[in-house]
């Protein structure tokens, strides 16, 4: 049929071109993403070395050469990896509990109007609370130990996670809701097939922010709460402080920074993949 043929032609015209995925292009893309970061690191090292050369705080401040070789030594020792393991285990446990609490609270607040009236502004308020301020309270309540740290991680991360979910539910496009209701989606099915998938981008943004807060709370916790058992990164940092070991402390800080950046990159990648699948990303700037 003529209409059919014309329609097919029109469809083909409307569809965009296929993306080029050759290795050369991918390598070029990777380089384009990497060089500004490498340049930034080089600049920091340069400034650091210059400050070191002026002889400022000569007794304690070591140059990048000393610190990096110290870090290299550390990386080869089991003690650092054991500490990373201890800290990451706490991070995982604390974050997972915060995830459950935050998601449950977020969902309840989004669904039940009186709860929202009661808790909505409290959740926003909690997000601005510096996590270190919770520790005296947590230590009094749970005494010194891991429970205090997990508690503060929850107080730090759960509000962001809940707020992300609430935002996502609130901003479900009304037109999609109308389409879903016409389709016969009601109650739980409406949440499962429409509202929750629609909330996913905002929820992931909340998860990412929640991770940043959890990580900060954990580091603060390892510095101020004394725990019996194998040392985490915070305890190593404390020891270096007591020994006035500048190179050691700086090395640990670099390790903490790298872990934070790697996890954040994983969240960003998930977020971008999600947006790309939904066509919410401008293809020309998708890095």
């Amino acid at each position, binding site marked *: 049929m003529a209409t059919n043929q014309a*329609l097919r032609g029109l469809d083909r015209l409307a569809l965009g071109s296929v993306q080029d995925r050759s290795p050369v292009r991918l390598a070029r893309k990777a380089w384009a993403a990497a060089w500004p970061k490498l340049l930034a690191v080089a600049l920091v090292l340069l400034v650091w070395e210059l400050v070191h050369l002026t002889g400022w705080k000569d007794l304690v401040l070591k140059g990048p050469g000393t610190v990096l070789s110290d870090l290299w030594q550390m990386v080869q020792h089991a003690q650092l990896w054991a500490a990373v393991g201890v800290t990451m285990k706490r991070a995982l446990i604390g974050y997972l509990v915060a995830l459950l609490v935050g998601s449950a609270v977020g969902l309840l607040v989004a669904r039940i109007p009186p709860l929202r009236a009661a808790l909505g502004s409290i959740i926003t308020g909690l997000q601005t609370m510096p996590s270190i301020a919770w520790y005296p309270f947590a230590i009094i309540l749970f005494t010194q130990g891991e429970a205090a740290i997990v508690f503060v991680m929850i107080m730090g991360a759960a509000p962001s996670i809940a707020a992300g979910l609430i935002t996502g539910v609130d901003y479900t496009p009304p037109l999609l809701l109308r389409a879903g209701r*016409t389709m016969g989606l009601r109650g739980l099915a409406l949440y499962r097939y429409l509202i929750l998938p629609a909330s996913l981008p905002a929820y992931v943004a909340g998860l990412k922010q929640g991770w940043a807060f959890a990580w900060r709370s954990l580091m603060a916790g390892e510095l101020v709460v004394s725990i019996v058992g194998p040392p985490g990164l915070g305890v190593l940092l404390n020891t270096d402080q007591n020994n006035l070991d500048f190179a050691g402390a700086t090395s640990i800080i670099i390790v903490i920074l790298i872990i934070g950046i790697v996890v954040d990159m994983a969240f960003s990648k998930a977020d971008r993949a999600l947006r790309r699948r939904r066509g919410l990303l401008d293809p020309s700037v998708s890095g």
Partner: protein
Amino acid sequence: MTETRLTPPATRPGAQDWAVRLTSVSKAYRTGSAHLLALDEVSLTVRAGEFVCLIGASGCGKSTLLNLVAGLDQPTTGVVEVGGRRVGLMFQEPALFPWLTAGRNVELALRARGVPRASRRQQVAELLDTVRLSGFAEQRPHELSGGMRQRVALARALAQDADVLLMDEPFGALDAMTRDMLHDELERICADRTLTVLFVTHNVREAARLGDRVIVLSSRPGRVIAEHPVPRRGPRRIDSPEVAQLAATLTDRLREEMGQHGN
């Protein structure tokens, strides 16, 4: 749900010849202290298998009327009856779920009405074939053109097992060429499936091209002010003289109506 009655044909003895019936339907909205009458005593019967176009200037309550028939809203007074199996609704935007592929979007409508998994896949393939999008099941909405998205939305509406289709300016955002072809497609699909269609548009040519009957609504409040049956003699074209003639008549009627608001 007392005002909207869904009457399945099976439970009703003797075939009824109407698919949608509105009896003195009024709908008022309260916006702050103001009282807005969107529809005023609208009575309208759509026969089964009929294609009825509703035209009117903005504010004539066209969308309100469709929401009432779809059961998404309740009339203030009057009775809305739907005699079909199910009502499907299409909007100016395709309103597809962006996280699902075209095929999954259609499948969700099947799942929502409880079609078992085993037969869903085949039905999705058939429905996409009906709207001539067989090769596009795996594409996501943003990878399709506007016209293709609207066809997926049509397939989704059909997947609801709808025999009454409510369309709210469904081709309003498309270019003329695509719209023209979708008119042909819609006509074919309606004939194949004996669908009853209530089609809202502000495009008089589109109304004259598609409708078996064109109903003109007044604005604020919405009232039926004219009815034009369109004698059907084979397929029509949007640029045929009969369509142009009816379009001119409808335009005159609408201008007259708007002129009254200008005074």
